């Protein structure tokens, strides 16, 4: 590749956003895997986790779509030697793929209803990148400091590593309604992919994603009819009214359980 852009997504993200966005790009554009980061230095490897009856193993894989000058990276978040891991990603992107721009995908938990239009927030590594992003309808004037007792996200760490290497990079954040954090949020995926499509000229077919959004909205509408209490909670969020912790937990639990059930 003479030039490319890199998109990074992590598993275990809020609303599974990182994985969903990367998988959609891979599927829709027919990206091919071309490399991986060996897990030994970065994951504990003290056995395997079992999820949904299946043994899991950490994966950190690169895919590419030469026709679109696109490289994507999908990975479990490493649990040690983060700096070395993040530099590995940029080494591959810069040395082998000549990537000029880097985007990370991430969901942030938000107290809003799923019917509220999704917003895309960005943080840039360099001022030049912020200027590039100013051509798009994004929230890009964020001021933020990690609150005491919390830690920055891996995406922020990657953005810092990119800044040190003078790479134009941006974190893309979509607020995810808190009751979809444990499930999936196709609306957030749509918002992220729509921006990447415009910015990188990918020619994405949104049909599958549109259908998925419509299906989820229908199912939640069905749940609201079945459980008036849930309808009340969501209506209050739609009116910018708050919920108690107990109400919030119940809403998240009911929605997650309902969406997990097969059609």
């Amino acid at each position, binding site marked *: 590749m003479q030039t490319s852009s890199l998109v990074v997504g992590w598993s275990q993200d809020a609303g599974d956003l990182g994985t969903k966005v990367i998988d959609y790009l891979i599927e829709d554009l027919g990206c091919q895997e071309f490399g991986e980061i060996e897990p030994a230095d970065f994951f*504990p490897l003290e056995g395997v986790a079992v999820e949904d009856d299946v043994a899991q193993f950490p994966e950190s894989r690169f895919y590419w779509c030469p026709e679109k000058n696109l490289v994507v990276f999908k990975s479990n978040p490493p649990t040690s030697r983060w*700096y070395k891991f993040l530099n590995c990603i940029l080494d591959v992107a810069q040395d082998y793929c000549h990537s000029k721009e880097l985007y990370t995908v991430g969901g942030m938990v938000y107290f809003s209803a799923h019917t509220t239009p999704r917003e895309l927030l960005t*943080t840039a590594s360099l001022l030049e990148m912020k200027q590039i992003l100013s051509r798009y309808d994004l929230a890009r004037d964020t001021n*933020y400091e990690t609150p005491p007792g919390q830690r920055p996200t891996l995406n*922020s760490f990657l953005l*810092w590593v990119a800044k040190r290497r003078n790479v134009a990079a941006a974190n893309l954040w979509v607020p995810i309604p808190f009751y979809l954090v444990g499930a999936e949020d196709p609306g957030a995926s749509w918002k992220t992919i729509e921006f990447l499509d415009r910015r990188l000229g990918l020619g994405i077919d949104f049909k599958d994603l549109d259908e998925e959004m419509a299906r989820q909205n229908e199912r939640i509408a069905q749940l609201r009819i079945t459980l008036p209490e849930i309808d009340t909670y969501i209506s209050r969020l739609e009116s910018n009214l708050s919920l108690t912790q107990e109400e919030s937990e119940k809403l998240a639990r009911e929605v997650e359980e309902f969406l997990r059930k097969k059609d």
Partner: protein
Amino acid sequence: MAGWHGGVVMAVRLRTEPKLENPVLIASWPGIGNIGLIAVNTLVGMVRAEEFGEIEPWDFFYPKKVSIRNGVLEDLEFPANSFYFKKTEKRDLLFFIGEEQPTNGGRAYAEGTQAYQMANLVLDVAMKFGCRRVYTSGAAVAPIHHTLRPRVWAVPNTEGLINELKGYENTVLMSDIEGRGGQGNITGLNGLLLGVAKRRGLEAVCFMGEIPIYLQGFPIPYPKASKAVLEVLTAALGISIQMDRIDAVVERSEREIERLYEMVPQEIKEQLDKLKYVSSAGPSEEGPITEKDKRRILEDIDRFFKREPKED
């Protein structure tokens, strides 16, 4: 300067290079009750040691704070790993204080390659300035009551230091602790540094202040043991400092611990109170309770707090 450890180049940044004569290194990382860290931080503050360098943290640590201004990432802050120095009439002092221990995954203490790399980087700097003696400090979890004065367990990395350590007041060796036969473990970097120093031909001693077994699981500092460590450390260094500042901290901590102690169920408290008469310093210092009593108390405490005794 850069160190080549484990096939990875890691950097130490020194802002100045002070002229030091045969300095001793005093290093500390967080541990149980932050006993060693509080002792060394207090000493650094009391002698007004000057910060002069650091180990670049990003190879070892996850960042602790991000700052974003107007949509652009401004800074990422990592746990501090700083070197300090102080020239004194008696001897020159070199300090290293680590805000966190480098860990793989979610463990509390450093281990493995990264711990070894960090220990070597700290000693690279110490040896660059001609250091031949290293002190670390930590906690010794012991069956004692919080109203008693904690003793300091001293572990050297060479037999040649044992006689010197025996000369310090309120200090015991592992072989003085009943039932240990001179054996034990020192977890994390406060212990590992002794081993790495031994490998590189440096003398080293770890001073561990006793913390009551029932306090080890609480996320609170135990400055009473830090003061005990500080007393022994300053004696070993041949310097004297005012203890007013740490005395005030100890007083506040005592009040907090008493408040927690009042919340312990009466039945357990009665067992814990018997620890006021326990001596773990060997058969020559018999207390008013029997060995059988002592074993039962420890079993009760262990059941209540579900923890094993250890050192760090």
